[in-house]
């Protein structure tokens, strides 16, 4: 395996959350010891429910937030602290696509001006030639020069997200973090934008972190997938293997709830219990209250991520005992 473009180890982020005006703040661990690596040109899908900490993990990977513990290395060097000049310079190489394109765009500036802005900020190219580069970028995401003259509110949701993608690609970054990039769009538009991202990723050789709660989309775009539950990665592996034979009961439940098109229509596992709440994290394996196969040790002992088959890692006591395939066969 080539040296990773971005490597994060043991990322932990805790927020202080106040319940009421006078109550003492509660420490909420949003991300707890996450280790990730993305090779140049590779797409990693990060899956989880809301509150799983996947967005926070993505923001730390980009350097937008500083981890409380752990570190991020980008291209072999430590991530500089946010706000400083080295950090700002690094923005040209690592970019983000947001969930809400309307919120990410300045509603008072025309699209072309905003696509051009990264070039102005980082002083890339001859100022006189930047207009041409902007037209090229707009073309690459399927927007016309006429779209460039419009304001964000004059575009559709899909067109806005295309504009955000064009802006993110202006500096020819090496890494693109997409945080739920299509979940705010109409279902009919989602596929178009996902296909655009796939084409761009392949054409430009981008490394990409694709964060989503939607397994179908992640399956379509990612080569490798990591599944998060309450701040921890519970399973990681090659996308095809992982979806075909989930190792962790949580992954299994997710996969069963979102059958692959044309795949076998397996039984659907319905998770019991409350949806995960980072402020009230269960002891032991955080998934145990909802786990159909939980044992006594799952309540007390936190399972660690262990290799389970080629390129696969699973954090589950039951999987540690037997390889994934065996477990599958037994179930």
């Amino acid at each position: 395996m080539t040296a990773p473009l971005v490597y994060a180890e043991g990322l932990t982020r805790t927020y202080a959350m106040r319940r009421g005006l006078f109550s003492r703040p509660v420490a909420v661990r949003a991300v707890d010891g996450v280790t990730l690596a993305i090779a140049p040109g590779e797409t990693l899908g990060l899956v989880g429910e809301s509150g799983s900490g996947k967005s926070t993990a993505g923001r730390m990977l980009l350097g937008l937030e500083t981890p409380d513990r752990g570190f991020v290395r980008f291209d072999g060097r430590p991530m500089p602290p946010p706000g400083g000049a080295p950090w700002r310079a690094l923005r040209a190489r690592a970019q983000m696509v947001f969930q809400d394109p309307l919120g990410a765009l300045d509603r008072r500036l025309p699209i072309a001006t905003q696509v051009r802005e990264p070039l102005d900020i980082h002083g890339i190219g001859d100022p006189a030639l930047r207009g041409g580069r902007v037209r090229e970028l707009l073309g690459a995401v399927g927007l016309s020069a006429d779209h460039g003259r419009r304001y964000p509110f004059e575009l559709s949701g899909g067109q806005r997200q295309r504009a955000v993608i064009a802006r993110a690609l202006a500096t020819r970054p090496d890494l693109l973090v997409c945080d739920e990039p299509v979940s705010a769009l109409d279902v009919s538009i989602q596929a178009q934008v996902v296909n655009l991202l796939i084409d761009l990723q392949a054409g430009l050789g981008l490394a990409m972190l694709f964060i989503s709660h939607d397994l179908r989309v992640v399956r379509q775009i990612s080569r490798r997938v990591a599944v998060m539950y309450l701040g921890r990665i519970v399973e990681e592996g090659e996308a095809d293997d992982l979806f075909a034979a989930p190792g962790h009961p949580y992954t299994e439940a997710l996969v069963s709830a979102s059958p692959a098109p044309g795949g076998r229509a397996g039984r659907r596992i319905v998770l019991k219990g409350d949806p995960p709440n980072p402020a009230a994290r269960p002891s032991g394996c955080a998934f145990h209250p909802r786990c159909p196969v939980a044992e006594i040790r799952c309540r007390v002992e936190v399972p660690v991520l262990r290799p389970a088959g080629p390129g696969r890692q699973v954090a589950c006591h039951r999987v540690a005992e037997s390889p994934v395939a065996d477990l599958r066969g037994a179930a």
Partner: protein
Amino acid sequence: MLRFATLRLGRAAITIALVVTFAFVVLRLSGDPALIILGPEAPPEAIAAFRKSWGLDASIFVQYVDYFGAILRGDLGRSMRDGRPAILLVAERIPATLALTLPALAIKIGIGVPAGIYAALHRGGPVDRLVMMLAVAGFTVPSFVLGLTLVLIFSVQLGWLPSGGQESWRHAILPVVTLGTGGAAILARFTRSAMLEVLGQPYIRTASAKGVAWRAVVTGHALPNAAIPTVTMVGFMVGSLIAGAVVVESVFSWPGVGRLLVVAVANRDLAVVQCILLLVAGTMVASNLIVDFLYGLLDPRLRAGGRAGAH
């Protein structure tokens, strides 16, 4: 509740400290008080003596600490004009000011709050329109214009009331009316919008939909909730009991604290000005504190929060 109380008291103390610092900084920035008071032609010995007696020869930090200490002891200096303690000069004017502002406050609350409630309950009616119009006037007509207009009508034209001075209760009528009407209109408008806001809340609509008598909804739910913002406004007005009459006292030559302030400013009688500044700040801070604690009584949510915080 304890945490709440210490927080509020701490903030009050900080505000007072800020006022004292403000006075000190302004005092020192304004130049050499000795030269200002004694004049540039004063003999050097006189200036040196003055500096010594006012502690101006020490370092700025020592002066600041001394200044703070003196104020904490209640020593606010002497009037630079007639040599009497500034605090006495100010204190003997307070009754005159309260003689205007307390009745004015009674008018503001006695007319403003009921008028606001009535206007909100009869929205769009003639009283509502009148309240809104008068409230706009209350914002845009300065008190000196209102006062002089009243003098023009009731003293100059009709000859019913005296135009200035403090000889009898009749002299107080015009200034009290001037102070009271503008404030009453503003308070009415404030109460009205507080009421309307509460009346628009879902739980009020639910209560009335459930068949609870409208009168019970209003007295049981709307009034207590609308009271919270209104209390803030009244608190601000109580806090302005001293400061609110500066202009009106001048219009009617009423010998209160406000008139004293204007004269002291014109004469650059710094000790008196500073004493009034502290008095005004103290009144404001005290009324803010009272309002904060009234909040605690009025808002059950805050009270519950306060109890939880005490654990």
